[in-house]
């Protein structure tokens, strides 16, 4: 499998799902994982990932709070960080709220699978990979 030499930050409070995502992505990416919003913000500031996979219902700081914090960040690598939302929230209100915070894709957990999410992450990162090469 192709190695993209890019870092994915997975933010998911559910241990089982977080482990599945880590296993799925680690064959081609460097993977970081956080179980709550506070930890996600700390890791993002410290490690500067290339993309964030973000759940919305999270302990301490929820996904909306994480999005707001990174978009307002003075560091451009964080304020422009690509974010893919992976949540079971599905209402127009939730989707609109995340789109207003400039997400790159929104997936409903019950209606997607890991391969589709993986393909979207690769698609989002592909131009950057080409530029890097």
């Amino acid at each position: 499998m192709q190695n993209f030499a890019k870092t994915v930050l997975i933010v998911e409070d559910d241990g089982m799902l977080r482990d599945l995502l880590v296993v799925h992505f680690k064959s081609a990416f460097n993977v970081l994982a956080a179980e709550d919003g506070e930890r996600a913000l700390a890791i993002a500031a410290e490690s500067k990932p290339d993309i964030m996979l973000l759940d919305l219902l999270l302990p301490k700081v929820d996904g909306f709070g994480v999005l707001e914090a990174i978009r307002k960040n003075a560091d451009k690598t964080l304020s422009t960080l690509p974010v893919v939302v992976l949540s079971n929230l599905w209402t127009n209100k939730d989707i609109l709220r995340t789109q207003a915070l400039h997400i790159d894709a929104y997936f409903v957990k019950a209606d997607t699978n890991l391969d589709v999410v993986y393909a979207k992450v690769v698609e989002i990162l592909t131009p950057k990979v080409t530029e890097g090469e």
Partner: protein
Amino acid sequence: MQTSVEKFVPDSHSLSLSRYYRFWSLFVGRLNDVLRFFGMRKRRKFWGVVYDSVNKQPLDPVLINLVYVDSTHAVQTGVTDLSGRYGFLARPGKFKILVRKTNYSFPSTIVSASNDGVYDHLYHGEFIELTGGTEVVAPNIPMDPVAKDWNQQAKKHMVDNNPYVKLLRSRLIQSLFWFIFALAGVNLIFTYPSHSVSWVAILLVYAWLLGANVLLPHERLWGLVTTADPVNLEHLILELHNPLFPDVILGKTEVGQDGKFFLLANPGYYTLVAKYKQPNQPARTAANTQVKVGKIGVVNQSLDLLK
């Protein structure tokens, strides 16, 4: 296989519901809603719920696998939605359902019967065997909490799904419904022959509903795609999109060789998109149509391709 995919090039917007079918399904759906509301017709199991065996709250996300004994059948995988719902359109064969969620164990030892007073048709890990055609498989599944789950606590105020309240409300409505029926009957007997017109009218409404309950067909648990060339069905996938956000998929399923599909969705309006899987390429959009999902929470319409 490649040939059959290439041969199938339907016109855009060719996925359609006839006007007559739309009217009929709307009529049957609303009347079924009324009959279920009054408890005259038992609620069909359009989907199953994975729930906490102690507080009966729905669980999400739960990873669900339908695993056949015969390994030639692929494992079907799903994740419960915010209301703990799931369902599979299973092929004939012998299989098990396996469920996994952080902080919960399966099978439940707290609820070991087939009914716990709130949920029925309970599943505890036994083998299921289907001998006929494809069928919707969606038993309710209790799981036992083994540790505190933050997600479940946080969700309590978000999901309007208190099963005890629902059960009580349903029993009250049913009791009131049959009480009025009894009252009208008694009134008719004791005021004979000088009937009150209003009591007679009430009894006529009951008679009409009872007749409808006998004659009205049950709604299907699954949807059906019909096409001139059934071979193409094995390449077909259906996606439900939010019309306001076309990039967001709110339901996805494959179509069986018999044209049946199982597609769970919350009530609302959607764009249903039919796509064809292509080897080593993204799926190709073949057709789309607007669909309305009612209270039953599944897309169970008949859809014509190549009409």
